[in-house]
């Protein structure tokens, strides 16, 4: 509706507010068209595509090796997971396996990346709900992880950490000490975030019963990751279909009960602790050996197609690659977790208030780079 003088906002009971793409809390360039009755949300429609860069199409024009760094730009918060998923998919297509040492390095780095992704989620989610100190505390710990990444491969965000067939770099001297120090101190910091939020009346009020999604609805919509586990479904690809070296590690899958924002918060908090636990196990038993499988310089997988998925911090990250036997993929399709999880938004926000929309977008933990690709 327009807001000219003759037709003011009071004349209608329904107003449409366009939240985004330049809104501080739509986590990037998501646009949500909200139909409001006062402060109550009647309907929400997501408009995506503002960050579309044609990543999948690029996969058809780049060689298998060249495509990997491009994929880092999808979920730029969890670039390591993107890279791991892709490298494993191509390895599966080639019928090879990365050596155990490389597998361990991959697990450690991916779990550190999961922590950093969850920390960013925690900080921004809390900031959206108004608790701004958590944001800076979370970034303090995230910085330590990024320093480890930087020491390992030189990059902090879009790391391109692994290669098809293993890893490019050997771990640096002092890596174990630095990582050990981090995982020893990290649980204390998680307690610190929890003192600020977990039992805070306002936080509970803002998250309990907000954005509830039942296990059935979540499964029907294809929601995965912490968002699904918050609804009480114990589904984690690390356990369900172990990849890399995950079958060697001890860890628990935290689940929620009611599937509200608070449950998803608790799930992610616990996942951070579990990830620290995995890293702690990994650094103590990295096997010796090569870090790269024997592989020809030019990667030419046989004709065929493959689907492989991993548990990225946001949910199931799947790659579907069709090979025509050349050095470039015939079709490279990505199943990004954020894109699928975002479909739950409409169901979650119905009947809630404007302030809850922000909380729900936050709890879905979406990254627009991955949604639009």
């Amino acid at each position, binding site marked *: 509706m327009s807001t000219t*003088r003759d037709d003011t906002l009071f004349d209608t009971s329904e107003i449409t*507010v366009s939240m985004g793409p330049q809104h501080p809390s739509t986590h990037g360039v998501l646009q949500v068209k909200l139909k409001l009755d006062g402060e109550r949300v009647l309907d929400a429609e997501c408009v995506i595509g503002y960050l579309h860069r044609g990543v999948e199409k690029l996969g058809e024009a780049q060689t298998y090796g060249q495509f990997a760094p491009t994929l880092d730009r999808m979920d730029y918060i969890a670039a390591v997971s993107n890279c791991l998923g892709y490298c494993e998919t191509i390895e599966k297509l080639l019928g090879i396996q990365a050596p155990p040492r490389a597998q361990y390095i991959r697990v450690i780095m991916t779990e550190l990346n999961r922590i950093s992704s969850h920390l960013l989620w925690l900080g921004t989610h*809390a900031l959206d*709900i*108004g*608790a701004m100190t958590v944001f800076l*505390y979370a970034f303090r710990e995230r910085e330590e992880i990024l320093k480890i990444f930087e020491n390992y491969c030189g990059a902090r965000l879009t790391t391109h950490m692994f290669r098809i067939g293993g890893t490019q770099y050997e771990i640096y001297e002092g890596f174990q000490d630095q990582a050990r120090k981090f995982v020893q101190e990290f649980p204390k910091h998680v307690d610190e975030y929890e003192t600020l939020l977990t039992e805070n009346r306002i936080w509970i009020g*803002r998250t309990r019963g907000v954005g509830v999604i039942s296990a059935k609805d979540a499964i029907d919509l294809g929601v995965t990751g912490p968002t699904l586990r918050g609804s009480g479904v114990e589904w984690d690809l690390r356990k369900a279909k172990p990849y890399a070296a995950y079958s060697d590690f001890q860890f628990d899958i935290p689940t929620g009960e009611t599937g509200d924002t608070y449950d998803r918060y608790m799930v992610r908090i616990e996942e951070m602790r579990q990830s620290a636990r995995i890293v702690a196990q990994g650094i103590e038993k990295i096997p010796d050996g090569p870090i790269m499988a024997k592989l020809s310089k030019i990667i030419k997988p046989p004709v065929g197609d493959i689907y492989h998925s991993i548990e990225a911090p946001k949910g199931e990250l799947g790659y579907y690659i069709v090979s025509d036997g050349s050095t470039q993929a015939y079709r490279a399709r990505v199943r990004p977790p954020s894109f699928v999880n975002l479909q739950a938004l409409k169901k979650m926000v119905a009947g809630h208030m*404007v*302030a809850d929309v922000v909380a729900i977008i936050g709890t879905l933990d979406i990254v627009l780079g991955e949604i639009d690709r």
Partner: protein
Amino acid sequence: MDFFIDYILIPLIKIAIIMAVVPGYVAVITLAERKVIAWMQVRLGPMRVGPWGVLQMVADPLKLLLKEDIIPARADRWVFIMAPVICLIPALVVLAVIPVGPSFEIFGRTVTMYVTDVNIGVLYVLSISSVGVLGIILGGWASNSKYPLLGALRSAAQMVSYEVALGFSIIGVLMLSGTLSLVSIVEAQKNAGAWYVFLQPIGFILFFICGVAETNRAPFDLPEAETELVAGFHTEYSGFRFSLFFLAENANMLTVAAMAVTLFWGGWLRPFPNVAALGFLDFVPGVVWFISKVVVFLYLYLWFRASWPRYRYDQLMKLGWQFLLPISIANVIVTAILIVVFDKG
């Protein structure tokens, strides 16, 4: 001549002092807010402008003054211009009745530390400060844009509902002191031998919660919840006009802190005014006591902001009407019963 000095010159000087102190205070509190919250968040805060970032207090207002002053084409021009002024004036005017310290003698004249002692001081503060909300509604309305309007409506609803509980929370103090004049309330606390916070602890807590809500500060800062409503009622404002809203908000914080100190924390009185053993504390002037108490409450504001998430609109209403209001009424009744019982016993 005496008339001129007593009724025109001295009040004018006092008014000038208030008008000068408030913007200065706002400059300081802005820097303090950034610094204190930064320390709580393991940051340094502003460090670039001047040593230790001190000149930031000059740089911030200067930047606002130099910015382009935009009036949206669709805005209701005159209302848009007037709104920040309507918001600011009550915020400054209420400070007139707040007694900063005991009166003192200078050049053979008794000078009081307030502009005027209205015998309905508390009512005056409550009524004038609630005019400020009009500026916010008009500002949101005149912007003719969605986010400001939603922000303004939130603000109006919030201020109106919390004013009720705020009023009730003060009644306990009024029953104890038997007067509405702020000066007499402080003196009554001296005579009672105890700050009223010890006699009215629940009243004080209610007053301060409502006061924070009245000034739209965290965790009740919904009208300007940036993550939801961009900047709330002042989304369309920029430059100087924005700074007037900012000034008004901070002046209101000062008013609430000063009222809390005056009504509950003994105004300019030293701690334990009835304990003679602490008489040595009297060498500290009353003004210093008053200001240091106010600073404590201003610090609380910042502490709240760094610690707590934000309430949701309906939760805020629920808290105000279903929780604070009943308790404040119960507080009035209990106080009344206790006064009767103890006066007879």
